[in-house]
Every structure is written in structure tokens, then in C-alpha cells.
């Protein structure tokens, strides 16, 4: 039996108005970032319900990253401020339950920051890969 090399599965929720365009820019500029990052486009970072994050983990993600506009630059004026509060509490709670805090992250990436997007993803993928497979948040029913 051939043993497959471990590759982390990373889910990135990207705001349509900034980070999603940032990812596009990274691609246009031929900047490398891991193919393990699966981008989900959301209309605003505050569209991300805490359940989305947990659901991603349950379905086998090893890391979840949220990318939104810089505070103050939200397309909808204040969406990312709510995200910031929600995710601060959610991450703190996940930590409280003993789940590795490196598996979750929030990063503000604007449409002009293609380089930052690629660098963030490289860094995050590296950290998650170092943690290894996500055992604490897996759901056996969703195992592939």
C-alpha cells in the first residue's frame, strides 16, 4: 500500500470585495501559494457564521482562515467589525475546549495585497501542516 504524503486541507473564507480580489491578484502576479487552500467566496467576512467554521472542521478541514477587508474599509461599512468580535470569542472558546489555536486565523487582506495574500496562505499552510491531521475536531461520520 502506498502511503500518501500528508497534505493539509485549508478552507479560506474570502470576502468578495477585497481578499477574493487579493487572491486573484496573487494569481495574476504568478505568486505561489499552496494548492491545499480552498477558497470559499463570501459577500462579506461577517457572512461567516461560527457554524461555517465548525462545519468546515467537521467535514475534514485542518485549518480555517477568514480573510476580510481591513477594519474601516468594509464594503458594507461595518461588517468586519462584527466579524472581529465574533471570531475573537469563537477562537477563544475553541482554545478553551483544548483545540489547537493555530488552526484558526483571521487576516485582513485588501484587493491590492496579492503578495500579502500569498504570504499569509504560505505561512498558515505551513503552520497547519506542522500540527498534522485534525484529530480533535473530526467527525467520524464525515470521514472520507
Amino acid at each position, binding site marked *: 500500500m502506498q502511503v500518501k504524503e500528508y497534505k493539509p486541507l485549508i478552507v479560506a473564507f474570502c470576502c468578495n470585495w477585497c481578499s477574493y480580489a487579493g487572491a486573484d491578484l496573487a494569481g495574476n502576479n504568478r505568486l505561489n501559494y499552496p494548492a491545499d487552500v480552498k477558497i470559499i467566496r463570501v459577500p462579506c467576512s461577517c457572512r461567516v457564521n461560527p457554524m461555517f467554521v*465548525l462545519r468546515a472542521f467537521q467535514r475534514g478541514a485542518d485549518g480555517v482562515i477568514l480573510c476580510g477587508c481591513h477594519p474601516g474599509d468594509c464594503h458594507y461599512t461595518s461588517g468586519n467589525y462584527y466579524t472581529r*468580535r465574533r*471570531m475573537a*470569542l*469563537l477562537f477563544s*472558546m475553541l482554545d478553551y*475546549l483544548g483545540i489547537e489555536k493555530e488552526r484558526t486565523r483571521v487576516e485582513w487582506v485588501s484587493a491590492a495585497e496579492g503578495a500579502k495574500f500569498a504570504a499569509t496562505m504560505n505561512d498558515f499552510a505551513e503552520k497547519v501542516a506542522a500540527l498534522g491531521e485534525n484529530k480533535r475536531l473530526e467527525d467520524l461520520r464525515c470521514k472520507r
Partner: protein
Amino acid sequence: MQKITRDQLIEKAASLLANGTVSCVLGWQKGEFDYDITPAVFETEDELKANFVWNDFCGANFSKYLVSKTKKCEGKILVFLKPCDTYSFNQLLTEHRFDREKVYAVGIPCEGMADIAKVKAIAGDGISAIDCSGEKLAVTTIYEDAPVMIDAKDVLAERCVNCKSKKHVAYDELIGEDGDVIDSARFDEVAKIEAMTPDERFAFWQNELSRCIRCNACRDICPACTCEKCVFGNPNSSLENKSPANSFEEKMFHIIRAFHVAGRCTDCGECSRVCPQHIPLHLLNRKFIKDIDSFYGEYQAGAEVGSRAPLVNYTTDDLEPGEVFERGDN
């Protein structure tokens, strides 16, 4: 032992029924045993005299019942509120969940409620009767003739040991004396868990939450959980039932349950009281309250009507989610 008596409450309720101020009374009634007291609606003085109960096991918080009962009951409804219940009462008013005009709230002092699990730990199983009228609880079991005398202080429910307030924040009328907000040690246990290593924390919660049978009692009793349709009630979500294997499923339920009431939870402790598996669910809620207090300033949900909950509010220089872990107290 409670300071006010059952007779005082019945007298008050009967006089309000007689003069037409209220048309029904939300009160406690004896269940199958002396300790499983259930909420009930009374419409006449005779019903009150026959079934109304007020003792150390009347823990039920009536605030949430008002949401459905004010719609059903014609005229005003009389509700008895202990100090901690009044916080939930205010929180539900803030969220416009019931019509204040249809409620006549009577504040009653509370000396703390007993936890039946603690009583059973001392007196043993087979409890046939509990008499709360004396200085001590007299617990009669089917195995002994003489009742076991227990000091009420020894069997106080966890939420009452760390009572946050004896002050009524909402009422139309008060029986007895009003108390003060108490500077309690309710976050000590949360701090103890925070001080553990991540592996210990994971083991602790795995141990607690894997007992969950997903009966949803914590959700159904919670005065902050008042959605008519719940995300956990969706049969297509694979989340509505307990998963057969030990997995993330029950943690997900409990994280989301606590998160949905974060910033609105008044820390009434009903979730832990009703849990048939004795999971300390209040520790999840208190973690959120503690975090909110330390990240965004002290906030007590329900302390006043109309206050803006921390999660529907923001400031431009809030803490970044990544900074949560760099703080010393986490």
C-alpha cells in the same frame, strides 16, 4: 429554607386574581416527587391552594414561559420572579419577545435553591419526601424511618453558591426585601480550566461533553434561546441527533448553543440545572461572559432594558482575534 412562605404567595396571587388585575398565575407545582417541581398555570384560588408550591426546589425560571403564555392567556398574567429570573425577564423584553403590558411581575426574594444531585449524594436514593419548611431540609427515604436532616447550605445549587445578584432588576411589586448585586466568584472555575494545558482542557471537555445525549433540554429551557426554528432542529443538517460515535458533533452543538446566546446570556444557570447528564454547561456560557467582560468591558445582560449586546456592537479599536491568545489572562 426560604424567607417568604407559600401562604404569602398564594394570598398575593389570590387577591390579584380576585380583583381582576390578572387572569392567570404562572407558578410552581409539585411533580411526581417533591423535588421535581414543574411550572404550571393556575386560574383559580382553589387550584392555587391545592397545587401551588414554593420551596427550595422551585428553581425554574419563568421568564421564557412568558413568551408563549402571554399569547395564550387572556388578560394579564401574574409571574413570580426570583432575582436572577428578572435579568432574563429584562433580556427578553429587550428582544421584544413578549408584551410587557400583559405581565404583572411580582419579585420574590430567594435564599438559593437546592440541587437534588447534592441531596441524593448525602441522603442516598429512594427519596420519598422532602420537607423544606424547617431550618434544615428533612429528607425521608424509603429505606429509613427517621428523615435525614441536611443543612440547606450544604446542598445549594452551584449557580446559587456563586449567586451574582439578589437584586430584582424588574418588577411591578416586590414581596419581602430587595438585595444587592453580589461580587461573586463565579469565574473561578472558568479560570481554573483556562489554566490547564490544551491537552488537559481537551480531555476535560471530551469527558464532560461525550456524556451529552442531545436531549436538547439545555436549549429548550434557556431563556435566551427563543428562536421558533432552530438550526439544530433541521432534519437535513445531520445535526439534529446524537451521532453514534464519539466525535466533534456534540462539541459543535455545545459551542454553537453557547455562542448563540453569547452576550445575551444572563448566567441564570438553567442549562446546567436541567441537564440530565450533569454537564457543567454554565462553564461554557461563563467563558463567553468572562471574555466579553475582559475584551469589551463589563457587561451584564438583562441588567437594564434596551441595552445593546456586545455582539451587535463594536468599536473601531477592538481586539484582533489573533491577539486573544497573546493576552496574559488566556
